[in-house]
Structures are given as structure tokens and as C-alpha cells.
């Protein structure tokens, strides 16, 4: 269903009246959703559906409120998938929410993250302007890259209405292997040698002395890789559980244990997610953009998109 006109009207009314809005997808990330003191909720969940999809173009155009699972099912029917892997909280996340959060999943260390998959978007800024940036082609450098700027923006710069996303062929097969390593560093060194061999890795996580690998590709390559790597095969359920944060770790069962994903690039605890050198993000309260680096610049960028502060949280007002 197309709710864009109603969404644009709500933003314009809010900008005129000084009302604050909190953009909300399916509400699958409770810590990102609104609370009474932050502003009125602006729901995207009825703004859904695939707008354009030609598999030979390797791109799909989709409304932001479309559930990730629904989108992935439609791509799977044509033998394709999103180039990025995004978390799916409670099985209900919307694609717009996933991009606004910008968390890239296990595949990202090998195939690129959310920022690498966003080719274009339609959005409403804080003035209620209906804007389109980027497009449906892989290479596009006309104007500033607002589409990718929106990745990780957490609803602060405007409302994402539609997204053009890169898609890729589904791998012919996928396998998961488990191996023991004394520590993260030794597991990372091993993974590096397999990357150098050209094995089609699509996941490498380390926790509790276990390195888990996921490989995606043609059967012949996976056979060659498995014979060389010599881990124990297991089903790929572990990766989907990690993606949905349904892993036991997230039920506070592990104390201070850490789970490293993306060959060490991402570190999960029961309470937080941390990427690279970035600050840890609390799973209880979500990204705290007040603590983002380059805060002064970010404030000017927020004002450039939302001069009236429609999407500015009340506490930052």
C-alpha cells in the first residue's frame, strides 16, 4: 500500500506546528521506537510493497515499510537475494528500519554491508520535501551521496519512503563448518589464509573457542574448500539464529562472554554490539547519536535536513 502522501502530509503538519515525530517501522527494535516524551509516532508499516524488480538489472525498488522477510522471499522466487544481510529482530523488521539502523550482518565482511547495497532512495526531509537521490543503477555519482548518508541515520534526517537495493544471484549451495581455536587471533589468521585461497566465505564468527564458517557458492568449490578446511559440518541454522538475535547469548545466558562476527569486525555481548573501532551500542537503548563522533558536524547535517527539528529527540532539543 502506498502511504507516501499521508506520510508527507504528517511531516509537513509537524514542521508547521512544531510537533516532534518519531519514525517507526514494524517496531521490531523497541529501543528505537518512540516513547511518549520523544514525540508522536510516524508509522511506516502500512507503506509497503515491491515497486520494481527486474532480476537482470540486479536491483529491487521497494517501499520502506516492507518486511525484510517478505522482500527476501520475493527475491528468492527469482533465484536472487539482497546483496546485504541485515538483522531481523523478532522476524518482523522492515527494510527501511534495517537501513536506518545500518547494522550489517555476517555476510558483510565478505560481500559488503548495508551502505554498499543502497543504490538510491526516496525520502521526506524535515521540511516535508519529497526527494529522490541515487537511482537504480550501480554507478551513479551525480550530486552528493545522500542515499548512503541515510544509512545509520536512525530516523534523524528524515523518513525513508522507498529504497533501491542491490541484489545478487543466490549461491547454489551453502554450508557451515565448525572448528576449534584457542583464541580469536588464531582463528582470524586461519580465516585470512582461506580468503587468500579464494574460498567463497560468507560468514566467520568466533565464540567459546569455536570458529564457525559459512561458505556460499558452487558445489565443486565448496567441496574443495571443505576438504582443505577440514571442519565439522553443521546445519546453517546457527547463522539465522544470530541474525535474529535468537542466539542463547542474547538471552543473558553467557555473562560476559563475547561473540565475534565478521571475522572479528563485530563484537557482540549479551548487552551490546560493537563494530571495529566504533563505540559499543547498547542493546537496551540503541545507538546513542549524542555520543557519535564528529557531533558538531552531525548537528549541522541534521539541521540541513531538518531545520525545524521535527525528528530531533526531545532530550536533544
Amino acid at each position, binding site marked *: 500500500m502506498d502511504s507516501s502522501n499521508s506520510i508527507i502530509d504528517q511531516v509537513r503538519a509537524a514542521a508547521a506546528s512544531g510537533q516532534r515525530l518519531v519514525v517507526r517501522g514494524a517496531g521490531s527494535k523497541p529501543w528505537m521506537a518512540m516513547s511518549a516524551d520523544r514525540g508522536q509516532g510516524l508509522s511506516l508499516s502500512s507503506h509497503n510493497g515491491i515497486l520494481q524488480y527486474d532480476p537482470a538489472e540486479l536491483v529491487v525498488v521497494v517501499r520502506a515499510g516492507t518486511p525484510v522477510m517478505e522482500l527476501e522471499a520475493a527475491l528468492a522466487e527469482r533465484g536472487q537475494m539482497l546483496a546485504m544481510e541485515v538483522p531481523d529482530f523478532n522476524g518482523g523488521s522492515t527494510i527501511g528500519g534495517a537501513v536506518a539502523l545500518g547494522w550489517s550482518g555476517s555476510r558483510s565482511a565478505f560481500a559488503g554491508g548495508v551502505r554498499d547495497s543502497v543504490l538510491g532512495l526516496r525520502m521526506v526531509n524535515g521540511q516535508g520535501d519529497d526527494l529522490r537521490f541515487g537511482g537504480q543503477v550501480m554507478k551513479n555519482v551525480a550530486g*552528493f551521496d545522500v542515499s548512503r548518508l541515510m544509512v545509520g541515520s536512525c530516523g534523524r534526517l528524515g523518513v525513508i519512503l522507498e529504497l533501491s537495493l542491490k541484489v545478487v544471484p543466490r549461491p547454489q549451495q551453502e554450508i557451515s563448518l565448525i572448528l576449534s581455536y584457542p583464541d580469536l587471533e588464531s582463528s582470524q589468521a586461519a580465516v585470512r589464509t582461506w580468503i587468500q585461497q579464494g574460498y567463497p566465505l560468507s560468514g566467520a564468527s568466533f565464540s567459546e573457542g569455536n570458529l564457525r564458517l559459512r561458505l556460499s557458492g558452487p558445489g565443486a568449490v565448496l567441496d574443495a574448500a571443505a576438504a582443505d578446511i577440514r571442519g565439522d559440518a553443521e546445519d546453517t541454522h546457527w547463522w539465522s539464529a544470530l541474525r535474529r538475535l535468537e542466539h542463547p547469548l542474547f538471552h543473558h545466558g553467557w555473562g560476559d562472554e563475547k561473540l565475534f562476527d565478521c571475522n572479528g569486525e563485530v563484537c557482540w555481548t549479551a548487552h551490546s554490539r560493537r563494530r571495529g573501532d566504533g563505540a559499543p551500542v547498547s542493546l537496551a537503548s540503541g545507538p546513542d547519536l549524542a555520543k557519535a563522533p564528529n557531533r558538531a558536524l552531525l548537528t*549541522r547535517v541534521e539541521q540541513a535536513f531538518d531545520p525545524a527539528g521535527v525528528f530531533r529527540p526531545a532530550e536533544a532539543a
Partner: protein
Amino acid sequence: MTANFDQGLDDALPAVDRQALLAALEDVLPADALLTEPEQLRPYECDALPTVRTLPLLTVLPETVAEVQAVVKTCAGLGVPIVTRGAGTGLSCGATPVETGVLLVTSRLDAVLSVDVEARLARVQPGVRNLAVSDAVATHGLFYAPDPSSQLACSIGGNVAENAGGVHCLKYGLTVNNVHAVTVVTMDGELLELSVDDLGPDLLAAFIGSEGLFGIAVEITVKLLATPPAVETLLVAFDRMADCSRAVSATIAEGIIPAGMEMMDRMALRAAEDFAQAGYPRDAAAILLVELDGHAASVAAEREALEQVMRQAGATSIRCALDDEERALFWKGRKSAFPAVAKLLPDYYCMDGTIPRAAIGEVLDYICARSEVYGLPVANVFHAGDGNLHPLILFDANDPGALEKSERLGAEILEKCIELGGTITGEHGVGREKINQMAVQFSDAELDQFRRLKRAFDPRGLLNPGKTIPTLKRCQEYRSIVKDRAH
């Protein structure tokens, strides 16, 4: 209406006291880092699109980040615009100087600072040449993926400014997909660190491709990839252009994503063959150069599938490079296509539109028809895999009106790209060259959003003024011309 600076259509440049500026810069720079005489400034009057030339007020060649900061602070204090230039290989007048501004050249900042083999990252200064990065890490079995045709000469700083692409973007992406972090000198002379790991909106992605309007990149951490163990390069010939276009979409539909997929039409391939003796079949109507890479077993399977797709699409011959030497030769032809075509007529004008792959045939027919109407030959060199077109319009600037005609034909081709759902620039940038077409691709509200984003980085508008984002006035003027043309 040309893209040239026009006092009536573009924002006025600030008046500058040259003597005061010179005195202030002499205090912060060694004598050999400051060029002031017309004969010294002449080599910097244009980038690789030489039809637009402007002498800068002064040129500075800083050797350290501290010198860059000092220059910027000096200019900020006196209200002097700065245009940043890398190697000057840009094709969109992005580094064309402004007459009341300083041209800041990064060529002396040319050190590879460190290579982290384990993290597969390299920290480099902006003046490091693109190919020098891959050369510096090759012994570790690593390479830097973006490979513009100018990679021998172009610098990483310029690549970041333009979000440069290359012939392997289909699989490996553009510069934005291959940069981990950038240290920027902002117009107030301070340092800004932007990283992919930062929380919040992706400021790093917004900086990449900002064409020198947001800040000056002084240190870039690039991502390195493992050199693929197996590579196959196929040279496929067609005796009909339409078959060749269809083969491109058919390949993707088959689920094959080549590392690169380049198309050349007859005029381009013959010129390249004469120039580089690459072994291209001179009688073909078009050729595809397709590269597959990865694990040997997957490359072998893909090659078999690809050959079948090509034969079904009507390929008349398929040759696979027998060794690295022949592969290099195949690519040499492609990478020298621009200079090769330049030998046919004194001047050429290179377009950079991108379209959905399915529209390649339609846009080729359009280019062919318009080329006849204008009486200007066009050679076509495409990054076909990602729909990025480089039609080369040939002309002789000594013929009265020929330059203007080539610009009008170019404008029509770009506007056709927009109509087909594409964009006016896939990898070369807008600069000054495509400033008019921005008014066709974007609405006033979108352009206004660009202007406000620019001011968030550079509130006084001193960095690369007049580039990339047209004024409202220029937009109104140009749109009315386009409308009249349609009637």
C-alpha cells in the same frame, strides 16, 4: 547555453586581495611550494577536459598535512576560495581553477604511510597514484580494486573526491565501497576523521564523491582485497551490435557476475587495435571483454556457462587469454581506448552516463541517430556490465561551431540517460562540465537539499565554488532551453 562560468547565472566569486594573500602564504609555506607566475600556473589551468581553462590566482604544493591546514586557515581568514587538485586526470572540470582562488595541489603528499596486511588496509596520502597502492601491496597477495583507466596517473585523493570507478566495479564497487576511513581538513583548517565504523549517518559515504566541496582529504585508509587465485579473460566478438547488447543482460540473467564486462563498438575497437595491437578482431561490429575471477573451480564453471550464453546471443568468436601476457594485452587495448580514439580526430568529448542494462540497445540506437544528425562521429566504449556508457564524440575544435555542437550532442545523450532511468554521471563526476544537466536530473527541492548539506560542511562556500550544484537561476534558464528544444 554552455557550462562555462557566467556572472549572470552563477554565484559571484569573492573579490580577493592577491598581495595580502601572497604575503600571508609566504609566511606559512616554503618558497618552492608556492607558484605565482603565469608560466608556472599554466600547467594547472585545466584538468583532463581541456576545453575549459582558467588560470588560478596562485598554486600551492603543500608537503605536509600541517602545511595544508596552514594554507586553509590563511585562505579562510582572508575569504579566499580553494580548489583542490590531485593528478589532474579528471574528466569533468572538477579541478578547474577559479580565477580568484588558490589551487591546492596534493601531488607532494605522496607517501604510502602503512600497510596492515592482517586487516587488509593501507593508509596512504592523497597524492599516491591509484596503481601505486596495488604495486605496494602486491607482494602480500593483495590489491586495491577500483581501477580507473587513468590508474597509472590518477591519485587516490582525486579518486575519493570523484568516487572513481573503473572496469571492475560490477563485482568490486566504486571508491566508496573500498575506502575504510578518510582524514579531512575542513575549511576552518581543522582535522575531521570519518570512518565506516562511526555511529550515525554515514558521513564518510557522503564525503566520498563530494568533488572537493566538503573538505580536503589528507589521509585515506583504503581496503585491500586478496588477489584472486584464478582469472579468465574472454574476448567475445559479435557481428551485430544488438546481439552484443543482449549478451550483456543474458549473462546477468544467467546468474553470472563477471569481475568486469566491457563493450567496444567497431570504431572504438579498431582505433584501440591500431593503437595497442591488442588482438581485437577488426571486422567485428562490437566486442565484449569479460573477466571472471575467484577460486579456480568457480571460474571454470562460470566460464563454461558464459561461453554458452555468448554463443546463444550470437557471438561469432570467443577467445580466452592464454596467459597473463595476453590478458594484459586484451586490457591494454581497452584501457588505451580514449587516447586511441583521440588519434582519429583532433578532439574528443567523453560522456559518462549510466543506464539500466536492458536499455543499452535503445541508447546505442539513439546515439547513432543523433550522431548522424549532428554530423559528428561517436565511438562507444562501455562498462557494459554496470550500464556505464562512455560515448566519445569526435570533432575538430578548429571547425567553427564544432565544440558547441559536440557539447549539445553530449547534453542530449545525457538527458536520454535520465529519461531511460539512468544518471548523467556514473564515475567521472559533475564538476563544471555537467552542471546544466543537474537541473534536469534533480528537482529544485533536491538541489536545495544538496546546497544545505554543502553548507553543513563548508558554511561559507569557499571550497570549489561554482562546481557540482547549479544555482537556481542557472537551473531555470537551462530547463526553459530543454523545454523549447522538446517543442
